[in-house]
């Protein structure tokens, strides 16, 4: 293999794929990046067997070939090379990659590309076309609610459902639920339901950081995998096997009290409460007071108490529609939900201290977040 590539292209490509490298794997080749010539471009791939990322980099191929290069060594080296052309030439017999850039020449010991696990070759027929900006926002609004508890793998994933021109994503960790819907530019050829690991989606959101190019998503039947392609990057992930809880049932149908508040003000109050609540069990109380008279306007009083630290109390102006209620939440959950809400105002729907609370952005029907309350026994 003999390839010339621009340093900045190579560095960017390595930066993208190295997210999937597993440095502490028992399989040494998984700590390497596959470097291969591929139809006039240089293909870089890395995988930890659950998540695989491939990136194509423009290059001038003089001689075809492939090998796997230790990711850390290669990235660190390329990042220090001058912003100019880099010449890669492989001695296939010794599996040594010579990397030449500027006035420096380096030999890196590699592992034969034969040992690298094969990544699926995508067939983009029947792929769902998604808008990058929308999809990134969806991931951001949903993935944080997924569980990190390996005991319940289903909840570590995000439910992705496509039906006609509607896309729905949902994640839950047993105490909260985040649901985001979006309309597709063009209807999907076939309905699709898959549980995608939250981590894969977070990586995808990172990769698809710029541009207006669409994301293509395809989940070939029976393979247990999902593949996303954005521009010159492919992200492949294993799907999570199992049944996602029926989240529709969890969303309360009605409420007795609807509180409208400024998103920023409530978020700030939550952050302040969290400073005190984090010492204990993250409990913050929301005392929602409806207007009793002209002198007593409706408001939300957020308070947190810690045995060691002290206590905090913040009053946020609100429009309360319905009766008041005193309800406690894990303030971290509430804060995380508010952080992903883009609208200036937010509605909190509650009905009883032991019934779930629903957070909705005002003027945006696409997102909702359900948080289970806490109570002090």
């Amino acid at each position, binding site marked *: 293999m003999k390839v010339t590539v621009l340093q900045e292209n190579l560095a960017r490509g390595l930066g993208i794929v190295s997210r999937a490298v597993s440095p502490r794997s028992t399989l040494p080749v998984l700590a390497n990046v596959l470097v291969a010539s591929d139809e006039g471009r240089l293909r870089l791939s890395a995988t930890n067997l659950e998540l695989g990322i491939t990136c194509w980099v423009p290059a001038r191929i003089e001689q075809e070939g492939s090998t796997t290069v230790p990711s850390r060594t290669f990235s660190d080296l390329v990042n220090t090379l001058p912003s100019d052309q880099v010449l890669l030439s492989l001695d296939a017999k010794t599996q040594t990659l010579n990397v030449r850039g500027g006035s420096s020449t380096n030999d890196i010991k590699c592992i034969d590309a034969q040992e690298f696990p094969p990544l699926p070759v995508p067939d983009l027929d029947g792929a769902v076309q998604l808008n990058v900006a929308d999809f990134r926002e969806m991931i951001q609004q949903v993935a944080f609610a997924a569980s*990190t*508890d390996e*005991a*319940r793998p289903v909840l570590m994933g995000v439910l992705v459902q496509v039906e006609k021109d509607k896309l729905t994503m949902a994640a*839950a*960790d*047993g*105490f*909260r*639920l985040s649901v985001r819907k979006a309309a597709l530019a063009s209807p999907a050829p076939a309905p699709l339901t898959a549980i995608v690991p939250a981590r894969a989606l977070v990586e995808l959101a990172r990769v698809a950081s710029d541009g207006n190019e669409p994301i293509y998503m395809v989940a070939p039947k029976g393979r247990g995998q999902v593949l996303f392609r954005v521009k010159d990057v492919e992200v492949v992930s294993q799907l999570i096997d199992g049944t996602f*809880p029926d989240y529709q*049932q*969890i969303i309360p149908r009605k409420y007795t009290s609807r509180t409208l508040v400024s998103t920023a003000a409530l978020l700030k109050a939550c952050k302040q409460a969290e400073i005190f609540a984090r010492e*204990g*069990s*993250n*409990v913050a109380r929301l005392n929602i007071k409806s207007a009793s008279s002209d002198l007593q306007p409706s408001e939300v009083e957020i308070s947190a108490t810690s045995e060691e630290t002290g206590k905090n109390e913040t009053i946020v102006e609100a429009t309360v529609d319905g009766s008041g209620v005193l309800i*406690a939440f*894990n303030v971290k959950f509430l804060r995380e939900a508010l952080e992903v809400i883009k609208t200036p105002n937010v509605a909190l729907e509650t009905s009883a201290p*032991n019934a*779930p609370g629903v957070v909705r952005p005002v003027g945006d029907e696409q997102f909702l977040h*359900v948080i*289970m*309350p*806490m*109570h*002090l*026994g």
Partner: protein
Amino acid sequence: MPIRLLSSEVASQIAAGEVIERPASVVKELVENALDAGAKSITVSIAEAGRKLIEVADDGSGIASDELALAVSRHATSKLSKADDLFHIATLGFRGEALASMGSVSRMVITSKVAKSNVVGSRPTKAGARIKVEGGREGKVEAVGAPTGTVVRVEDLFYNVPARLKFLKTDVTERRAIDALLTRYALAYPNVRFKLSEGNNVTLQTSGDGDRRAILAALYGVEVAKQLLEINSDEEGPSTGSGLKLSGYVSPTALTRSNRKDITFFVNGRWVQDTPLTAAFVQAYHTLLMVGRYPMGAVFVEIAPEEVDVNVHPAKAEVRFRNQNRVFGFVQRAIRRGLLAYAPVPTVTPGLWGSRAESSPQVGLDWTIAHSSDQLSVDSDQLEDVSRESGVGQPSDLQPSNFQTTAANKVPLLRLIGQIGSTYLVAEGPDGLYLIDQHAAHERVLFEKLMAQHDMKKIPSQSLLTPAIVQLPPASAKLLNEQLSILTHFGFDVEDFGSNSFRVRAVPSLFAGSDPSAALRAIVEDFEEDEAPLQNEIEKKLAARVCKRMAVKGGQTLSPDEQRALLTNLENCDSPRTCPHGRPTMIHLSVEMLERQFGRRGAR
């Protein structure tokens, strides 16, 4: 056979059987009499483990010669006059049965002289008096010369009850029973001089100067005695005079026994074997000892005589308390408090790390206990004198000079170094290296947090998005049903869902990160084997069990932040040194030990 009245001889032998069943019972009755008589010195001599002869001599108040004949008859006593007196007994004996019982099953000689100051009336007593009783038949009282006090000689015990004689154990056993008995009385009355001898062989001798630790050495051995922790506690009662007092010596957590036999209780100076009291003692060590290990120690409880009924057992080995729960709780709290005040970290015995470990690689690390020398309230000089006088132990062994010092109770501020084997944390403290078992440590942290929240009646519980349905085997389901109310106290919201399944709707927020059904299962697993007499204990057991399941496991890699948080939380624990099941959470390798091992402080 026609029914007929038993002859008085047979009747008295039957009655005697309840009080006098072995030589040790004779010693007990006589020593108690001596103590009741205010003796300052009690000398017990035995021959052939007490079968041939038991002689107890005291310097107490003595028995007047004209009362001597009365003293040996049944139901004759000076300690009690009306039935009401039974409810505030301040003496060890009170039934007036002991001498009569002994007299009916042996050849007994009582020699006694009343101290001058004790004489009532004008008739001066020049000499003592003596009476012989043989198989229940009283002889004449004759005047003899004698020192002040009483000497009771019991010869040929059970000579006329061959059946009883056959049931005596071997000499060694009987002798040990006498030893144990007298040692315990010596412990309870450190101001009385005790001496026990068989022939020329003195087996116990105390100085009577009030120092108990030397007597402990005789009872438990020198090594153990010097480790025992001294505890003292008082509690006011609801009214004056109803207060409780407790003092004694208890074992530190590293010193354990495989049974409860070495737990000794004295109530108002009386040695009693009381199951609830022993249970209270053991419960004080709850979560601090490994399963199947028991503490040891001697505890003296003082309580107003009205609060305790001693007249429930022929040999008075059992007592009843008017308010058993109060006494129980008090004993448990007092011991627990004393224990937590010391709570040392196990220290690795350096020897096993050196060359000796190579020769026997199978040898596990041995534990010793790091004490603070000032906590052991032993005046070594005094102790030395006592031991020399009384011939107990080797004085040099009792010097607490080579004790290592560690701060009590809390762990010192620790600096995290890292995690090894994904199982242990390594940390540096001001006094050396600490190895911490992450699972045990986390278990302790969760347990204390949960119990603290529980005690404040404020366990935050987190509702579940979707209730978890847990299906259990029928037996477990039944058990869980009985414990549902306790679970509610701990922040669970569990309801019976029919056909052995349960619906979990909320869990304590402490466990919110993990699987709720695992928490529930942990509670009922192996529950069958438990016998838990007290509500409080059930709760603690449940809590300990859930915490065990919820704690991080060995083999789980923790991020540096998690490791640091675990250390900080452990530092804040009340008893950070053991997990709730009693396993140690940490091993301490002192700087001195490391220096020795590296040869910086001369070769060992």
